[in-house]
């Protein structure tokens, strides 16, 4: 529990402690919210006309795990090309510590997708979700920069280059995730 709070409040210390079980735990919860919780919520909210596809759940869960490994490898590869000496295992063990905003986003997206009609055109709900979505995006970007500095150990121009290159990979993987059916990309 301490590791989860550390990842939430003090990301620099969390990255340095490299708690892989906390990292992978966060990734697993995020994937399950996307692939299992969202279809279940949709099935219970509608009157019998939504069918739960178990095979699709398995495919999206496997895709989520593959996405996490792929982005970790891309982090390692880009950072290595830019002069980082960090091992691939460190990248795989720590990127998950940035998944608090992703987890929160997947939970909110599940509700906004299913109860879309409640929030549309409502100024109060609209503002609440606007704050949440923009806040989550900023939070993830802050964690992304801290990660590049602390784990990839890149500074200055190299850090900016890595930010742009991995940013492009993130956009491409997010599009691929959306195509498969993962509404919140596992990134």
């Amino acid at each position, binding site marked *: 529990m301490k590791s989860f709070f550390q990842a939430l409040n003090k990301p620099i210390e969390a990255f340095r402690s490299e708690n892989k079980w906390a990292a992978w735990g966060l990734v697993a919860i995020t994937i399950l919210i996307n692939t299992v919780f969202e279809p279940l919520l949709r099935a219970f909210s509608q009157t019998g006309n939504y069918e739960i596809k178990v095979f699709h759940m398995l495919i999206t869960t496997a895709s989520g795990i593959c996405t996490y490994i792929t982005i970790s490898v891309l982090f390692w590869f880009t950072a290595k090309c830019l002069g980082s000496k960090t091992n691939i295992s460190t990248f795989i063990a720590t990127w998950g510590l940035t998944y608090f905003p992703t987890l929160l986003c997947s939970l909110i997206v599940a509700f906004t997708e299913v109860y879309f009609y409640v929030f549309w055109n409502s100024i109060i709900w*609209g503002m609440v979700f606007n*704050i949440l979505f923009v806040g989550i995006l900023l939070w993830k970007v802050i964690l992304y920069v801290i990660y590049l500095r602390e784990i990839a150990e890149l500074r200055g121009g190299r850090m900016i280059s890595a930010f742009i290159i991995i940013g492009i990979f993130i956009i491409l993987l997010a599009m691929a995730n959306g195509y498969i059916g993962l509404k919140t990309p596992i990134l």
Partner: protein
Amino acid sequence: MKKRKDPFEGVFDSLHDKTQPTTEQKEKMLNYVLTEGIKQNNSLWVKAGRWITVYPWRFAFSAAAAQAVVCTALFGTGYTNLFLSLFGG
């Protein structure tokens, strides 16, 4: 034959070495390091960086709340609907 000097004796001798800084000089050095350290730690960039990196959600949601209030006041539900359709619809 010359007697071999005990290594500990050498260490104790170095404490009385005249070429080493005096207590007064050491205090001056310590004060310099402390004042410079405080100056560096209190620079605006360091403070801002620390405020953002510790509790990162605090900065993220504060900035998001500020833009949401300003942009919704300017563009109304069109703006909030845009985000709902982009991220959650």
